[in-house]
């Protein structure tokens, strides 16, 4: 009897917590949607959503952000994957170094990072105006494609991507995969691309998604360095067209959610059988891996 009432008590408590949390997290979203479709004085209208595409600057800023995101993902993966694979396969002593280097950006908040960047960018005109390096300083600040933002975003995404990739490589025995592929006669390059990387698909997808989400929502660096990526554009129109900016915010959250689903689906193995086989094989591989 005591056990029964106790369990009922727990269930009641759990329901209350879930209800409160659900209200807190859903009400702002619901209200945002209501705010965009129920304009005072005009009644129900979808004008805020239909007006998005024709709003000035929408396409260019969104395209810019997507280009920046693609470049950042390529750069981050291109830097991290070889380094992490090398540390796993050949030089375990490099792993602590990589961990420290990749965690360093956590100590510098993005506002402080952008202060550093604007300091460096000021060196250009101050000290280097007569050297060829000055051209580089101008080129990285090209408003059509600001390379400096790619650099800053890559630094900010590095800790997230490192965690995702490191966790992925922990779960798969990279060294055995590599040796198996090599002893079947594959060249090192082929072994990496056809044996190791396909097995790391989940981790690669995860790292890409985190980077993409970071770049899509990034405001601080873009705004303070004077560029106009997506988030800066939303704030810019917020002053004059409140409905429109809220509508875009709602859509950007939905977009992030949709991307998460797409990436989660893409990171799953294509068929079911390998998945089950891998789930069985993984526990056997893990102890071996942790022993090395």
């Amino acid at each position: 009897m005591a056990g029964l009432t106790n369990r009922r008590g727990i269930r009641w408590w759990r329901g209350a917590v879930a209800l409160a949390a659900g209200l807190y997290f859903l009400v702002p979203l619901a209200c945002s949607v209501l705010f965009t479709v129920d304009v005072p004085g005009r009644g129900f209208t979808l004008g805020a959503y239909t007006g998005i595409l024709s709003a000035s600057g929408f396409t260019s800023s969104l395209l810019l952000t997507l280009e920046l995101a693609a470049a950042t993902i390529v750069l981050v993966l291109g830097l991290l994957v070889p380094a992490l694979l090398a540390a796993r396969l050949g030089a375990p002593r490099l792993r602590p170094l990589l961990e420290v280097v990749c965690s360093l950006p956590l100590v510098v908040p993005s506002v402080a990072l952008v202060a550093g960047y604007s300091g460096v960018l000021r060196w250009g005109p101050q000290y280097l105006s007569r050297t060829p390096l000055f051209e580089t300083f101008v080129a990285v600040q090209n408003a059509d494609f600001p390379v400096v933002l790619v650099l800053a975003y890559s630094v900010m995404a590095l800790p997230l991507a490192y965690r995702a990739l490191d966790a992925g490589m922990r779960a798969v025995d990279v060294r055995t995969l590599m040796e198996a592929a090599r002893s079947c006669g594959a060249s090192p390059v082929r072994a990496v691309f056809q044996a190791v990387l396909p097995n790391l698909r989940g981790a690669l997808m995860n790292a890409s998604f985190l980077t993409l989400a970071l770049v899509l929502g990034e405001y601080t660096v873009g705004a303070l360095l004077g560029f106009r990526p997506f988030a800066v554009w939303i704030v810019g129109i917020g002053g004059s067209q409140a409905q429109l900016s809220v509508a875009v915010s709602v859509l950007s959250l939905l977009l992030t959610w949709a991307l998460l689903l797409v990436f989660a689906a893409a990171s799953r193995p294509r068929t079911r059988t390998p998945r089950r086989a891998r789930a069985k094989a993984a526990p056997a591989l893990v102890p071996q891996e942790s022993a090395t």
Partner: protein
Amino acid sequence: MNVATSADTGPLPEQAPCPRKLLFRGQAPKPPHRRALGPPLAVAPLLVFMGAAFGLPAIAIATGAFTTSADAPGGVRWTLSNLTTSVHGAYLTALWGSVRLSALSALLATVLGVPLAQAVVTSGSRALRDAVMSASGVLANFGGVPLAFAFVATLGNAGVLTTRLHLAARGWSLYSFWGLVVVYLYFLLPLMVLTIAPALEGLRAGWREAARNNGATSWQFWRHVALPVLAPSLLGGYVLLFGSAFAAYATAAAMVGSSVPLLTSQIADALSGNVLVGQGNVALALSVDMVVVAGAVMAVYVPLQRRSARWLA
């Protein structure tokens, strides 16, 4: 050794490629010479990139914070006055405001996030748990501009709830300290759920049963068993939330402008040239303040994380 035995017995023709393999096995601790150059070459681009894209700005902050700016009377020279300025007057108010906002919202998120995570973890539904965890993953990164606008639409001056419930007449304002706390919880709570859920899952059912068999009430179990075991994770989570709230800029900037003084918005102001002549480098000194706080956060968080990982293993 293996090579010797296989060579003595005479390898079968199809085993011909094996000796090399076996030789490799035998020398496993010492990587073959062919690979010696590979790892440094593969790691070098990352290190060079970090040196340029992270090291240079770090040097700019470190040197700029301790030198006068170029337009100051007397030109560029070493000084401590930037740092002194950064912890006085309006900047001190902003620093204090940031610390208060972060400490309070992180505390609320911890106190509210643990029951939420516990409710999800003990629900027994794998699907619910996975759904909440991925929703938390998105919401924890939802900070910034979209979040600010969602709350402006909900609780702002013309917000749906504000007008429907006449909150303004009751003294509510989103553009205040408490307004920011309510908004910050929106990304701090999911972050807390993400951080603490693995620790709650690590609480063994056997411990609860053992405590109950010894006559402990639910309260006594939490007070004497669960909370001490969870303490490192809780403290680590709190510190992480504090750091996250402390570093946040976009949400507050898009929502309240600078009506609530925060360290991040002071840096942004200073970077935009909104300072007295000759104080251009105060922004860099403020950045040093932020890095010191964030560094302290990590110095507390990392050992705590290691410690709680020991219990969860």
